[in-house]
């Protein structure tokens, strides 16, 4: 023990002895800017800040962005928030990217409102800023946004579930995200529109928050089945929640007579559609958002051009209904196509 401690001390002492003069020497050449990019001949740096770095959705976004940047001779620096909803870590990430001298920042904001001042500061330094997947509040602080039309995605899910019930009166369970998150509200509202219902409709047997989590989705479904055994239609905020719900339904022996709809287009979700756990899902295209964002960033770095944004405030990257049971009047692709175009990996 003595030896280890002494070694540790020696190492510490050595580190300090080494470090101090280096630090002092470094002090003399004071640099001022963190805003100017790398020197000449260096690759253009593009920053990407996702909500988290664990969700496969963002992983595929990041992979696509990295590939697109490489193809354009640029370097992608990927950062992420610590947890969904955490603004502070994204603020720090953006600041660090600015200091690293990036030309463009692509971000999926955790807090659409709170991030705005930080993004505006980036813009003020001449950096191209774009939101991916989730728009900022009033599209402030960004030059462009690439996103899914979540209301439309919800609407397509709703239309499919309605058609699949084939005239039976719906007894609907709604597995929501969590209160106060725009994506969740939009999909929820879109779904009801597609079903031809409103929030006050008696057809809604119950609703629960799942945080988009599989385990919570299962518990929520179990509870709702307990409350109302007649449930025959399920709205889910995303595929993990849908897979959780499908598990609960299968445990209750109700798989055959309940229609589960979902949104996302993750490979695990498409596989669940293929296996019959989910009737249909509406795919969104995170890699397309990333690719188009990077392309725009490269164009901006080259000649300062910015993309034109339609009146909706964002560039729609599209949605696609995926099911193996196509229904009249609802254009869809099958799961074979879905598995080729899905994001993440099936597991």
């Amino acid at each position, binding site marked *: 023990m003595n030896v280890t401690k002494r070694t540790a001390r020696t190492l*510490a002492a050595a*580190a300090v002895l080494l*470090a101090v003069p280096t630090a002092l020497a470094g002090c003399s050449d*004071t640099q001022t800017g963190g805003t100017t990019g790398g020197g000449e001949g260096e690759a253009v740096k593009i920053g990407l800040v996702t909500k988290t770095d664990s969700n496969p959705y963002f992983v595929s976004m990041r992979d696509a962005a990295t590939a697109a940047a490489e193809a354009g001779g640029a370097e992608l620096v990927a950062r992420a928030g610590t947890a969904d*909803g*955490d*603004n502070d870590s994204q603020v720090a990430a953006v600041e660090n990217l600015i200091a*690293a001298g990036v030309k463009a920042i692509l971000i999926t904001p955790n807090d659409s409102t*709170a991030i705005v001042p930080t993004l505006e500061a980036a813009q003020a330094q001449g950096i191209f800023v774009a939101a991916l997947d989730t728009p900022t509040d009033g599209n402030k602080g960004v030059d462009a946004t690439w996103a899914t039309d979540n209301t439309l995605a919800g609407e397509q899910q709703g239309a499919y579930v309605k058609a699949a019930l084939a005239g039976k009166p719906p007894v609907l369970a709604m597995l929501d995200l969590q209160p*106060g998150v725009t994506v969740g509200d939009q999909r929820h509202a879109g779904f009801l529109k597609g079903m031809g219902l409103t929030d006050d409709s008696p057809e809604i047997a119950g609703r629960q928050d799942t945080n988009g989590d599989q385990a919570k989705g299962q518990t929520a479904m179990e509870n709702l089945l307990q409350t109302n055994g007649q449930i025959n239609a399920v709205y889910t905020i995303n595929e993990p929640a849908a897979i959780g719900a499908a598990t609960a339904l299968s445990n209750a022996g109700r798989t055959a007579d309940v229609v589960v709809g979902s949104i996302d287009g993750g490979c695990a979700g498409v596989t669940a559609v293929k296996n019959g756990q989910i009737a249909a899902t509406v795919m969104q295209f995170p890699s397309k958002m990333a690719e188009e964002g990077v392309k725009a960033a490269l164009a901006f770095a080259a000649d300062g051009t910015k993309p034109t944004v339609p009146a909706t405030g964002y560039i729609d990257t599209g949605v696609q209904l995926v099911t193996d049971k196509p229904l009249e009047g609802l254009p869809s692709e099958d799961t074979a196509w879905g598995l080729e175009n899905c994001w993440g990996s099936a597991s």
Partner: protein
Amino acid sequence: MSESVQTAGAKAAGVPDTSGTRAVTVVDRVFRNPVLGPLAALVLACVVFSLLTDNFFSVNNFSLILQQSVVVGTLALGQTIIILTGGIDLANGAIMVLGTLVIAKIAADSLNLQLPALFVGLLVCAALGAVSGLIVSRLGLPPFIVTLGLLTILQAASRLYTKETVVVEPGPLTFLSSGTYLFGYFRITLGVVVVLLSVAVLHYALTRTAWGRHVYAVGNNELAAKRTGINTKRVLMSVYVLAGVLYALAALQAFGRSPATSPNAFPTANLDTITAVVIGGTSLFGGRGTVLGSYLGALIVLVLQSGLTQAGIDPLYQNIVTGILVIAAVALDTVTRKKAR
């Protein structure tokens, strides 16, 4: 252990022989200084990233890292004094976030309400600290459980209180971001000055006042502290309330960083502060450690974050390095404690 050292039954009075060993003790004290480890790690990380990347070593970047430290740095001070008593606070982020929400909601209508709102926020945070303190000191429940419960309650309470992001107007609440000082090229915001002052004041209180010694004594050996006549319940209570006040200060710092807050903000503040405290050399068993170390610990995490961004390295490596530092710090503490016994 060392009976031979004992000159048992020594007759004559003799001055404890300190003069002969003084030279040794000075060196020894430098090395025993608990801040040395984290400081070395911080300097080392800075040196590595300065050599590795073009942009890390710039006054702007160092100024930025200091600005990024203000919220977690302030929260970590409260966490430190609680851990020094042998406790832990899992609810610190939740207390601060509720504080920011209360402040922002009250201040929403008028700039004139910002200062009263801040005062209410301070009361709320201090009261929540007092709740933990009361349960821990009077009922003797484990702080881990008490603050875990409080965390769960506050997360729900915050969302019941408001579900959206609340923005405050620039005013007294955001003044910590507005005032900046230039030292040569070095830009320092008022928030940074305040966090450094907080560290200094708390360091003074812990090392130079009786209260500070009692905090350490309670964490070292609560029964012993009680037997020497220290009112341990009052010490515990004061620590939790002071921590609450520091969380309110962190709330103000948070407005200085970003004028918007939401119930989803700072979800990992509790773990972030525990990380900073542990890397900073404070023992999770209580009774050993410094607030200065904790602040350095917070800086280390931020330096890793910044440096790896500059180097374009996958941010997951930051978590790996942080994890290694945490384990190394606790291992060092355990070894020291075992050796000390």
